C-alpha cells in the first residue's frame, strides 16, 4: 500500500474519535467538522515527509483543536463581537490535561457523535444520511448517489438534519450508566438502519453495497468501545452473516435470488466465521436480545451447507422467541415461513391468515400467502394473492419473481403440489 493510501486509511479510521473529541471541545457540529477537515489538510502536508504519527487520532484532535480555536478567535475579531461564551468554553480545551484522552472519554465522545445523529425528530433516512456524513465522512455526493437523489437535495437534507440536531442541543454531560445504555440502544438501531440501506439496495448500486460495509465498520467500532455487550456482538454478527451472502443474492440479470436457490459457494466464509465467533461470545452471556436472536437465525442458515439441511425447527423456535422479545406481524410472518418448511403449508397458512388486517399492504404477506395457497393446490386464490403482491412490489426484481410464480400456476394447473 502506498504512503498516501496509508494516510487516507488512517484519516478514515481516526475520524469518529477525532470528530467526537472536537465536538466535545467546540460543542458545535460544523465547527468540529471544519476543524477536523483543516487538521486532515495539515496531515496530508506533514505526514508524507515526517512520517505518520504514532496515534493519528490524537494528532488530528490536537491540531484540529488549535486551528479551530484560531478560527473562532479570528471570526470573533472580524465580527468585532468577541463571543465570550464560546471563548470561555475553549479555555479548558487548552488545558494540557485535555490532551490526555483516556479510554472512557474516547468512548463517550464516539458514542455522543453517533448519538446526535439519531435524534428522535429525525426520520430514519435523515439519521442515516447524517451519520454517513458526520461519522463515516462520506461526501454529500456519495450519500446522494446512495439514496438516488441529487447532490443539492441531499445537501439540503443534511443541512436540515443538522439544524434539528443543533436546536435540540447536543448532550455534553458524561452520561450515567442507564443513559449510556439507552444511547447505545439508539445508536445500534441507527447502525442497523445504515446496514439495511445498503443491504436492500437494488443490484448495480455498488455505492449502496458500500453502506453495508460502512455499517459493519461502525459495528466493529461500537464493539471495541463496549466489548462486553452481547447485543452489540449480536448486531455485528447479524450484519456479518447477512452481508456474507451478498455475492449470491442477485443473479446476473439483476433479479433477486431466494435463499434456497443461492449458490452457497459464493457465501463469504471469512465473514461467516467472524459472525459465528461473535455469536459464540454473545451466547456465553446468556442475555438474549433481538439482535442476538436475529443473528442466531442467520447463523443457522449460514451453517447449512445445502438448503435442505437447514434447521427449520430451530429457526421457528428462534422466531418464536423474537416474537416474545419484539412482537410484530412481520416477525410472525417470518415464523410462518419456518413453519411451512418444518411442518407444511397448512399450519403456516393458519398463522398467516390472521395477519391480513395488519399486513394487507405488505408485499411479502401476499407473496407468502400466494405461495402457501399454491402449495395447497388452491390455484385461483393463489393467483389473487400473487396479483396483489405484484401491485405492491418494491422493486422490478420482486415483481418479476412473483410473475414467474403466476406463470408456473398457469402451466401447472389444475392441481399443483410442490414439495418444499
Amino acid at each position, binding site marked *: 500500500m502506498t504512503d498516501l493510501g496509508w494516510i487516507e486509511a488512517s484519516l478514515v479510521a481516526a475520524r469518529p474519535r477525532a470528530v467526537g473529541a472536537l465536538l466535545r471541545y467546540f460543542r458545535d457540529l460544523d465547527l468540529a467538522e471544519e476543524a477536523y477537515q483543516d487538521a486532515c489538510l495539515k496531515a496530508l502536508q506533514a505526514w508524507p515527509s515526517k512520517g505518520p504519527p504514532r496515534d493519528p487520532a490524537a494528532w488530528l484532535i490536537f491540531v484540529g483543536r488549535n486551528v479551530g480555536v484560531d478560527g473562532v478567535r479570528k471570526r470573533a475579531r472580524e465580527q468585532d463581537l468577541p463571543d465570550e461564551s464560546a471563548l470561555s468554553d475553549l479555555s479548558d480545551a487548552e488545558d494540557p490535561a485535555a490532551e490526555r484522552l483516556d479510554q472512557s472519554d474516547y468512548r463517550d465522545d464516539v458514542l455522543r457523535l453517533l448519538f446526535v445523529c439519531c435524534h428522535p425528530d429525525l426520520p430514519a433516512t435523515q439519521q442515516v444520511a447524517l451519520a454517513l456524513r458526520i461519522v463515516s465522512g462520506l461526501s454529500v455526493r456519495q450519500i446522494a448517489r446512495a439514496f438516488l437523489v441529487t447532490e443539492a437535495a441531499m445537501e439540503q437534507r443534511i443541512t436540515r438534519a443538522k439544524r434539528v440536531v443543533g436546536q435540540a442541543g447536543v448532550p455534553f454531560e458524561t452520561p450515567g450508566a442507564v443513559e449510556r445504555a439507552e444511547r447505545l440502544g439508539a445508536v445500534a438501531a441507527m447502525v442497523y438502519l445504515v446496514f439495511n440501506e445498503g443491504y436492500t439496495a437494488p443490484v448495480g448500486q455498488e455505492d449502496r453495497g458500500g453502506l453495508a460495509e460502512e455499517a459493519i465498520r461502525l459495528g*466493529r467500532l461500537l464493539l471495541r468501545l463496549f466489548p462486553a455487550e452481547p447485543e452489540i456482538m449480536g448486531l455485528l454478527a447479524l450484519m456479518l452473516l447477512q452481508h456474507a451472502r451478498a455475492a449470491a443474492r442477485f443473479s446476473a440479470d439483476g433479479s433477486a435470488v431466494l435463499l434456497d436457490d443461492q449458490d452457497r459457494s459464493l457465501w463469504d466464509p471469512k465473514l461467516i466465521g467472524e459472525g459465528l465467533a461473535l455469536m459464540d461470545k454473545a451466547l456465553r452471556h446468556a442475555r438474549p436480545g433481538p439482535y442476538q436472536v436475529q443473528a442466531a437465525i442467520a447463523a443457522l442458515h449460514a451453517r447449512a451447507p445445502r438448503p435442505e439441511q437447514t434447521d427449520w425447527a430451530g429457526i421457528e423456535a428462534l422466531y418464536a422467541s423474537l416474537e416474545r422479545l419484539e412482537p410484530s406481524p412481520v416477525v410472525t410472518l417470518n415464523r410462518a415461513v419456518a413453519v411451512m418448511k418444518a411442518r407444511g403449508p397448512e399450519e403456516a397458512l393458519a398463522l398467516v391468515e390472521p395477519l391480513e388486517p395488519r399486513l394487507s399492504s405488505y408485499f411479502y404477506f401476499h407473496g407468502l400467502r400466494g405461495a402457501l395457497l399454491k402449495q395447497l393446490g388452491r390455484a385461483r386464490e393463489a393467483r389473487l394473492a400473487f396479483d396483489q403482491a405484484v401491485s405492491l412490489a418494491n422493486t422490478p426484481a420482486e415483481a418479476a419473481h412473483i410473475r414467474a410464480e403466476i406463470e408456473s400456476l398457469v402451466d401447472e394447473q389444475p392441481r399443483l403440489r410442490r414439495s418444499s
Partner: protein
Amino acid sequence: MLYAVLCYDREDVVGAWSKEEDEAVMARLGAVQEGLARQGRIGPVARLLPTTAATTVRKGKEALVLDGPFAETKEQLLGFYIIDCKDLDEAVTAARDLAAASGSPGAYELRPVSFFHDWASLTTPEAEPA
C-alpha cells in the same frame, strides 16, 4: 533456529481497507511466503479475526473469562498455541486447563483464526524439552 514473526498493525486502519486493497496486500505477502516455502523454510501462517472477536482468560486460582483482547502491557508475549475447537466454550476449557497446569499468573488471549495455512511441518533441531 525457528523464528516466530508476529504481525502488529492498526486494526481500524486495516479494517478501513477496501476488499481490493486487502486482497492486493495478501497477494504481495503470499508471494514472499511462496519464496520461503520453496526453500522449505516456512511453517504455519495464520491471520486472526479482529480483536472484537477475542476473549481473554485471566489465569489465577479461578480463571476469569473476559470479553475483548488482552489489554495489559505489563506482561510480554511468550508463546502461542493453535488448537482446533468446535466452539468458544471448548477453547475456554482448553485455556483453563493450560492455566491450571502453568500455575503462574498472566493470561491467554483467545483469537479465532480467519485464515490458516501450513506450508511445511518444521521442528526445532534440538529435542523438545519435556
